[in-house]
């Protein structure tokens, strides 16, 4: 069974489109994250939710909107996609918030904006 799953795995789209990436974890964890990894492999946290509540909201364009319908799911919606949004987006989960426990990463969604 996959612990943290993301869909889709690959996403190719045109500038200006709106797209969503879904994430689900079956580990029973309370905390979920979205990370962006750019072409230089720099890993940057975007958002974190704990029990469906937003607890980390880094400086990202407001075109990015996370949504957590329940604590097992954290989706990422991106409006008006730009070339610079091309990256790999990783979802992760951990038992608790606070950066004191292991984070389990999903396989990543490779987004390419043309």
């Amino acid at each position: 069974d996959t612990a943290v799953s993301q869909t889709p795995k690959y996403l190719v789209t045109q500038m200006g489109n709106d797209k969503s990436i879904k994430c689900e974890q079956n580990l029973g964890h309370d905390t979920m994250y979205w990370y962006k990894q750019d072409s230089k492999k720099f890993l940057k946290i975007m958002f974190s939710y704990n029990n469906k509540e937003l607890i980390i909201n880094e400086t990202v364009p407001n075109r990015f909107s996370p949504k957590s319908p329940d604590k097992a799911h954290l989706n990422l919606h991106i409006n008006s996609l730009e070339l610079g949004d091309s990256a790999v987006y990783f979802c992760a989960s951990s038992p608790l918030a606070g950066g004191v426990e292991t984070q389990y990463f999903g396989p990543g969604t490779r987004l390419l904006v043309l």
Partner: protein
Amino acid sequence: QQPVQSPQAVILREGEDAVINCSSSKALYSVHWYRQKHGEAPVFLMILLKGGEQKGHEKISASFNEKKQQSSLYLTASQLSYSGTYFCGTRTNSGAGSYQLTFGKGTKLSVIP
């Protein structure tokens, strides 16, 4: 505040040892170490929370200095499977109960036969 990792890249022959460092100008609440292979997700190696702590996992171990501003990852008797990019992830407290989670830029480790 992003931690500084060094070296940026290292090439080892099988059986050789390596040390990867992760430094911060501020005291860290915690340090995580991850390994990421090409095209895959980062995989957790270990977490350190206490100053002076040392932890090991087979031939890979890590330390956290007393001031909690530096952590080192030690890879001994390297194997081909150790190849990948190693990241340290850190938590720093920003005051009023808030904190930041940031990753270093990574160290690319290549183990050759």
